[in-house]
């Protein structure tokens, strides 16, 4: 399998009156073709910013992004724009991500029109849109409806159809189901997985919902305050979580079986400010196993098992 997307030391800082906000801080990731990388973390940990930075929707402050070996950071604005036929995004909120002035036909046609596809071939365009609507499960009679006439699930299907219209290989899914009802969530997730199977799509799936990420991902990356704290294949991460933060996250999943329920350990403290963060482990202030050396610089990802990376030097001791 070849690597489709790779980032090296990707950074995105925002300037604020109080200093630099480190939203994404030195992320290295690799996604193989046809695979799904799940990115999880709590609100404000920089996972959405990471997704936008990878697509260069927000210009990264530093680092490198490679798409099939091409360096995206070396491209100018025009070249980046041309990459949008290869990389697409599905947005979180299907209510605000669709232009209310456009009909479904226009919404799905828009990416193709922008990229001069089907130029002068109206029939081909109509056929393609019909196909796309069929693929994502939108009834043909809705072609000329407007987004406000539809429910959240159907709107999100438009979002999916629109992203697929330019036949991209890579799609960033930014919490595509978190604004939907649970029953609709399952439909959209199954749709995304079917599409991946049929078209060999590669996903970067951003979510805060661990059950969703468990359902869809091959590999999972856990983020905390702009840094990757743990990265591992799905099974490995769920069976052998090694970073104290990942452990806390997994423990927070409600367990319906009362006999299996262990003692609930709640994380103490608040997320510290991501503005000009102190060196050392960013989780140190909330970590139950914190040591003095955690506050010093040099907490890097280490491979503790094949393709299982943890940013905690004491993980083997903790898990004892």
């Amino acid at each position, binding site marked *: 399998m070849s690597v489709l997307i790779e980032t090296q030391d990707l950074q995105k800082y925002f300037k604020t009156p109080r200093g630099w906000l480190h939203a994404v801080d030195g992320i290295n990731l690799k996604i193989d073709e046809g695979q799904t990388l799940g990115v999880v973390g709590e609100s404000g940990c920089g996972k959405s910013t990471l997704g936008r930075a990878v697509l260069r929707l927000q210009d990264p402050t530093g680092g490198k992004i490679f798409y099939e070996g091409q360096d995206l950071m070396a491209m100018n604005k025009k070249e980046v724009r041309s990459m949008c036929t290869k990389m697409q995004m599905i947005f979180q909120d299907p209510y605000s991500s669709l*232009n209310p002035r456009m*009909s479904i036909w226009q919404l799905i046609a828009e990416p193709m029109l*922008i990229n001069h596809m089907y130029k002068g071939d109206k029939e081909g365009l109509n056929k393609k849109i019909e196909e796309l609507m069929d693929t994502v499960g939108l009834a043909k009679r809705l072609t000329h409806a407007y987004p406000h006439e539809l429910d959240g699930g159907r709107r999100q299907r438009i979002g999916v159809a629109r992203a697929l219209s330019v036949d991209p290989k890579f799609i960033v899914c930014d919490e595509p189901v978190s604004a939907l009802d649970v029953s609709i969530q399952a439909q959209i997730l199954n749709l995304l997985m079917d599409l991946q199977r049929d078209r060999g799509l590669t996903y970067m799936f951003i979510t805060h919902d661990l059950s969703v990420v468990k359902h869809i991902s091959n590999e999972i990356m856990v983020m905390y305050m702009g840094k990757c704290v743990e990265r591992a294949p799905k099974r490995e991460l769920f069976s052998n979580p090694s970073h104290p933060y990942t452990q806390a996250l997994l423990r927070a999943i409600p367990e319906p079986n009362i006999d299996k329920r262990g003692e609930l350990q709640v994380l103490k403290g608040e997320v510290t400010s991501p503005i000009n963060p102190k060196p050392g482990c960013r989780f140190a202030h909330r970590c139950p196993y914190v040591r003095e050396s955690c506050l010093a610089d040099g907490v890097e990802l280490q491979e503790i098992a094949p393709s299982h990376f943890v940013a905690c030097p004491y993980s083997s001791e903790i898990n004892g």
Partner: protein
Amino acid sequence: MAKHKVKATAGGGQSQTKEIIRRFKKNRSAMVGLAVFLIICLIAIFADVITPYSNAIDQIKGARLEAPSSEHWFGTDHLARDMFARVIHGSRYSVVFALVVSACALVISVVLGGVAGYYGGWVDNLIMRILDIFMCIPGDLLALCIVAAFGSSLPNLLVALIIGRVPATVRIVRATILGISSADYIEAAQCHGAKDARIIAKYIIPNAMGPIIVDATVNASRIIISVASLSFLGLGIQAPAPEWGNLLASAREYMRTCPWLVYLPGLALVITSLSINMVGDGLRDALDPKIRD
């Protein structure tokens, strides 16, 4: 609804314009407003055909302060001029001012508000702070000061009214565009590779048009009142020109004995202003895709 959907073709843009027109047509008060305003416009255009301008200016011997009759429909004023001709010709000032001033104010405001809202940063700050200074003075008072300072010629009056209207309109345009440019669908368009020009033309302007057009119509009806107020105070259109505010000002003294001299031009003023407001309300409802019929 079903019939409409079958009718709409896959052409895109056009079908929505049709939809807006269809919804506007269904709104009875808006259609009445539009009809009344169009009639007033026609009266203004064909005022000379209805009655020559000389009738509005020339005095009629021995016919001072006459009550409405078959000869003089609206009676005559204190200088023995035919009120009907004066009211008819007065419509020209109101209609021209309403259209010209609100159109100019709209263009200036869309440019200033658009730049401030879309680009933000120091440009936004500069434009808005300067306008804040203008905002401190109420629009009509500002217009009054400008006319009083530079003299009440027609260009001065136009400029004064435009300046009086611009600050509030810029705020509305800026706020509208600010809200739209941070919407997710703008980011989605960027993600599809759309250029700035396309985003402005197909995303920002169509979504901003509703509030802006409604504001322009509200402005038009306010301008009619403003022109009349300035003329009433003697700073607008100068006598003997038959501007409605002028008619009211000179009729004021005879209000008890000859009330029609006040009522008739006053009524013309109210009907014109009201009809534009009704059109504005109808447009607002028709332009909002979320309001279903």
